[in-house]
């Protein structure tokens, strides 16, 4: 009898662990009443600013560096160019919430899977407005859930200074990739990281002012 009780407890513990680890991104956060229905991101929103970043991309152990340039060219669309330090253009995209155009890409990078991955990353990076359906909190952040097709975006906004620090792009069960922002002035972000959880891809952007 005692033996079966222990077994029962063990199985229950095991199930509990499995269930918890299968839970959604919000498992560690406390639900909260919605305090807003939308959120506007300031970081790439000014059409007068040239957003220029020194960039390091680590993909499956390979390093690529260069310069990432983004510019808002109209209400909905950003132009994105990635060049080498010498200035050779490696890719040139136009991207909005629901459109995407490749102006040019060097043949070495012209792979559908790569273009689609970057499209997803950059679209989220440059996204201006999120509509919010649910809200959570932890000790340091208010966390807003925003639907994105079959997936969700979780926006982490610091309680201390109300800045967007992180966006987690997630399926129902798993985090797919994460954007982190470091911003001094809440106007643009000096440092941005895009980290993928399911593939070995990390993009690091460091803002620089040219002379």
């Amino acid at each position, binding site marked *: 009898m005692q033996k079966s009780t222990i077994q029962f407890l063990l199985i229950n513990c095991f199930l509990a662990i499995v269930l918890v680890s299968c839970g959604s991104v919000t498992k560690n956060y406390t639900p909260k009443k919605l305090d807003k229905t939308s959120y506007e991101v300031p970081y790439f929103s000014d059409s007068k600013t*040239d957003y220029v970043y*020194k960039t390091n991309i680590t993909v499956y152990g390979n390093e690529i*560096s260069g310069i990432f340039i983004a510019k808002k060219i109209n209400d909905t669309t950003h132009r994105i160019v990635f060049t080498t330090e*010498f200035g*050779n253009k490696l890719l040139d995209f136009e991207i909005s919430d629901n459109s995407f155009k490749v102006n040019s890409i060097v043949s070495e990078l012209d792979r559908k899977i790569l273009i689609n991955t970057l499209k997803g990353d950059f679209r989220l990076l440059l996204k201006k407005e999120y509509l919010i359906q649910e809200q959570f909190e932890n000790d340091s952040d208010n966390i807003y859930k925003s639907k994105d097709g079959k997936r969700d975006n979780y926006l982490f906004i610091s309680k201390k200074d109300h800045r967007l620090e992180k966006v987690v792009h997630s399926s129902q069960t798993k985090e797919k990739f994460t954007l982190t922002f470091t911003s001094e002035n809440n106007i643009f972000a000096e440092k941005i990281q895009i980290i993928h959880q399911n593939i070995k891809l990390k993009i690091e952007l460091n803002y*620089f002012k*040219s*002379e």
Partner: protein
Amino acid sequence: MKTKIALLILFISGNLFAQEQKMTAAEIASFKEDVNVVSKKIKTLSTDFVQYKHLDFLSKDIETSGKMIFKEPSLLQWQYKKPYNYSIVFKNGKILINDEGKKSAVDIGNSKIFGRINKLIVGSVSGNMFDDKEFTISYFKVKGQNLAKFVPKDATLKKYIKQIELTFDKEEATVIQVKLLESSEDYTRIVLKNKVINAKIDDSVFTN
């Protein structure tokens, strides 16, 4: 009023003419000779540079700057100092990169395209690039300067660079500006300053 407009038109068109004038065959021969004499004497070369990346949709060119050092026959260091530290060395079939202290090396071995790029950079800075097999070349005079335009013949190279324009100081017959055109709207312009020719440069400079 009419005269004023006529004068204005004359002035503008006059200016256009003054900007680029094709060289005669004799001028081309003498210009090439001058450049060849100077570039043959170059054993080492160091120069400061300012690079302006022009993209048509940006409000301002992206400006970076640093130093370039070359030593015969094929040691080359291209070093950005502002606004970030990034240095690239071409040495014995290898490319050594130092990106803000993060070091990496690429073995280019006999890679044709990198061999060509190396040759191109050295050629651009020394001016000795008059290779009719590689480029279709045209020659111009622009107020006190000479200008040579190179259109790559090789299809692979052409994918990256549509045209290279070298501007030469007329007196010294050395390159003062390199312009790499990717398309009609987008280009990289590199201005060379404080050039020092044939100063002693140790091989140890070309480590990264």
